[in-house]
């Protein structure tokens, strides 16, 4: 019968197609073979680079809603006084040079003379004054990142190309902090705006910008298209356009990187790294970050106040195994807050400290008075060593906490996991400080000044999450923060690292690396993480 033969043919066709798709998906798709990148190549002009973001950006670096995805767009659109150098030290951007006053209570910056806004107006000291005095330093606005400039009293224009930051105390890290999401905004564009955060024509439309690319069109939920700014003071970019495309799903981002719809992306979930590495149309590059994962043991809990207990935790947790499991090896165990990327300051002598040793952990716990108890859980004064680890559902935190739980169990400590939605987690742990122990991370500006995260004054409501207090640590932090002589500062940072490694205010876990997936045709991309790379898009070019 006709129907039966059709059916048979149809089934055969379907089976063949399915097999073909399965095979095709399994193999690397055909694509132009990438030639190795050579530095002697001449940059070519033209082309469009597409970068994914997870949601709509707010195009104002100081806006309370400008975080995560907005950072990429804002770093391209708005130049700042300094930018992260390729060696992490602050490099010139709108400011050509800078100098601290003798008493350390002021910094003076000399600006570019011929920088212009995208509407043709000149960029002057007045714009810097406006950005800081009228936006950042106005407490009632709640600008994002304002906390980084707590030491700035006011900003004044000495002349159109010279600007002076007046400080309440010495602040060596100011040039580095000015490179960290600190774009300068145009004063003339904000004239007459009663509420700068409600200025949607700017923040969510077509802002007046200073960077190598300016906004051509913004389509909510879909993309921001930037076109080349031919008048950019740093030199005309090679690319025609830079597109930030909204791609919320991480797997779709990987698929689009492989299909060529995206030019560069960050691979947060490193599980698929090996698969992507084998694709010829992209290259996979690890990057240094200014980031470290930590375990905070709340210092209001007397059990955690004993340094031997904290050291025992460090010995008991097999950090290298966690790095291998959750970061696929892209990371290094940490023993202080100073990242290896700070080549001038990082002290490698602590790297071998707290290498995984269950015996040392048990010994220290025993020294601290913990004895074997029922069910293999240690006890003291009749109470078992049991507490809850609050886990935020983001990134690698859940698998990390599971591994830590297992490690601690082997040492006789019972850690129960309480997994929470991220927003609720922040409310409980960070806002209310209602926690015993938690794992998280810090990302911070490219400078070893970590005062805000460790000083005793930052306990309770500040960034000193464990609430650790020690006058010796406070003294070291102050020295790092205020010392202007480079040799003396290096010494202070060295001492700081020794203190941190020996006393463990946070249990330092590891320094992660970022994995960038870059299209084989995209050249001129410096070897720095993608956020910092946004300051260098002028140098990017596409091989045809």
């Amino acid at each position, binding site marked *: 019968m006709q129907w039966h033969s059709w059916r048979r043919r149809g089934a055969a066709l379907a089976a063949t197609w399915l097999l073909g*798709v399965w095979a*095709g*998906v399994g193999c690397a*798709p055909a694509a132009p073979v990438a030639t190795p990148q050579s530095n002697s190549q001449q940059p070519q002009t033209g082309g469009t680079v*597409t970068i994914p973001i997870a*949601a*709509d950006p*707010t195009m104002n670096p100081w806006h*309370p*809603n400008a*975080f995560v995805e907005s950072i990429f767009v804002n770093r391209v659109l708005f130049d700042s006084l300094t930018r992260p150098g390729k060696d992490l030290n602050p490099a010139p951007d709108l400011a050509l040079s800078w100098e601290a006053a003798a008493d350390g209570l002021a910094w003076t910056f000399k600006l570019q003379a011929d920088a212009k806004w995208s509407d043709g107006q000149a960029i002057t000291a007045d714009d810097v004054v406006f950005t800081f005095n009228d936006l950042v330093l106005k*407490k*009632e*606005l*709640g*600008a*994002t990142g*304002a*906390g980084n400039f707590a030491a700035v009293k006011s900003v004044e224009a000495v002349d159109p190309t010279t600007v002076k930051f007046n400080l309440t105390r010495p602040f060596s890290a100011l040039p580095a902090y000015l490179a960290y999401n600190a774009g300068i905004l145009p004063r003339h564009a904000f004239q007459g705006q009663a509420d700068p*955060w*409600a200025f*949607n024509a700017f*923040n*969510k439309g077509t802002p007046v910008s200073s960077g190598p690319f300016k906004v051509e*069109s913004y*389509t*909510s*939920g*879909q*993309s921001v*298209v930037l076109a080349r700014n031919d008048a950019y003071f740093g030199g005309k970019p090679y690319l025609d*356009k830079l*597109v930030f*495309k*909204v*791609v*919320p*799903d991480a*797997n*779709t981002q990987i*698929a*689009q990187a*492989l*299909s060529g*719809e995206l030019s560069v992306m960050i691979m947060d979930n490193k599980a698929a790294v090996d698969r992507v590495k084998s694709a010829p149309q992209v290259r996979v590059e690890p990057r240094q970050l200014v980031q470290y994962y930590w375990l905070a043991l709340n210092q209001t809990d007397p059990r955690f106040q004993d340094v031997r207990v904290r050291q025992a935790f460090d010995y008991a947790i097999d950090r290298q195994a966690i790095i291998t499991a959750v970061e696929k090896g892209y990371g290094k165990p940490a023993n202080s807050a100073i990242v290896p990327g700070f080549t001038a300051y990082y002290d490698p002598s602590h790297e071998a400290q707290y290498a995984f040793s269950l015996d040392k952990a048990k010994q220290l716990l025993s020294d601290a008075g913990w004895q074997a108890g029922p069910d293999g859980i240690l006890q003291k004064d009749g109470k078992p060593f049991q507490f809850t680890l609050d886990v935020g559902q983001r990134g690698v935190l859940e698998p990390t906490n599971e591994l830590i739980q297992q490690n601690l169990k082997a040492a006789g400590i019972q850690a129960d996991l309480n997994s929470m*939605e*991220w*927003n*609720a987690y*922040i*409310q*409980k742990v*960070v*806002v209310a400080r209602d926690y015993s122990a938690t794992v*998280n991370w*810090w*990302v911070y500006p490219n400078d070893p000044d970590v005062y805000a995260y460790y000083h005793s004054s930052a306990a309770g*409501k*500040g*960034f000193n999450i464990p609430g650790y207090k020690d006058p010796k640590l406070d003294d070291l932090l102050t020295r790092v923060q205020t010392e202007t002589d480079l040799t003396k500062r290096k010494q202070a940072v060295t001492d700081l690292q020794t203190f941190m490694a020996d006393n463990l205010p946070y249990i330092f876990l590891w320094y992660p690396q970022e994995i960038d997936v870059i299209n084989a045709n995209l050249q001129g991309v410096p070897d720095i993480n993608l956020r910092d790379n946004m300051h260098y898009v002028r140098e990017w070019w596409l091989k045809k």
Partner: protein
Amino acid sequence: MLLLVSAITFLLVNLAPGGPSALMRMDVTAEQRDVLTRRLGLDQPVPVRYAQWLAGALRGDLGTSMTSNEPVAWRIGQRLPNTLLLAGTALLVSILAGVPMGVLAALRRNSLPDFVLAGISVVGVSIPAFWLGIILILALSVTLQWLPSSGLATTGSAGDLGDRVQHLLMPAAVLSTTVLPYVVRFTRSALLEVLHQDYVRTASAKGLSRLRVVYGHALRNALVPVVSIVGTLVPRLFGGSVVTEAVFGWPGMGRLAVEAANGRDYPLIVGITVVVAAVVVFSSLVVDLAYTWLDPRIRLS
């Protein structure tokens, strides 16, 4: 009814732990949180905030989104047509494909076509949309490079009809798999019920061809319960669109709702809930009207 929905949603959302995402970040200081709490009006008690919202809503002002500073009504207005397009296309595809499949299954009851279709139904209901979406993207976008994998149209352009259809194909196909099985199964059982009725046997006995009997008489009556199930599929489509829109970067209401929920954007969450409730009510109304057209016995005298 909408008033009740808005009140309950407002209460539930404000009771949820956490707060607007601008405040709930690791790098926000306590002073900033205090300032922002006051700016967003969150230091006032919930009933006061609800009264303020209601006063605005009755004038058509659904408030300002906390995560983007844009008017809530405007944000919803931007996204709703996209979701209606996606869900509408998925529904159309499900009906156009599902009804004939259901008819075939009913007519060839307990034979191979019936079993194959039953199998497809089970698979269709069980396959998670995000998995199917990614597989299709890998196959059709990455490997074969036939279709684009996200967005409404090619980035930066409004897109001509062909471009927009290309972008619509995969997400609509994936979304339709969440409802197609129901249409098939329900059409099949509805038609089977009807085929055993006396009037069908009478029509056959009269000498009418099989085709005329099925499509002219039986199907028209079978469609009445099918129309009712299509009405219940509308909320299911809205729910399914959340995942599909996330995977395909489709700028619709589903994605907006998830972002609003994660970011505790209270006015936006309440606004979306009220609008979706209104759409569901409207679709129920349309279904009721379709009944009266299909079955004259239901028309009120």
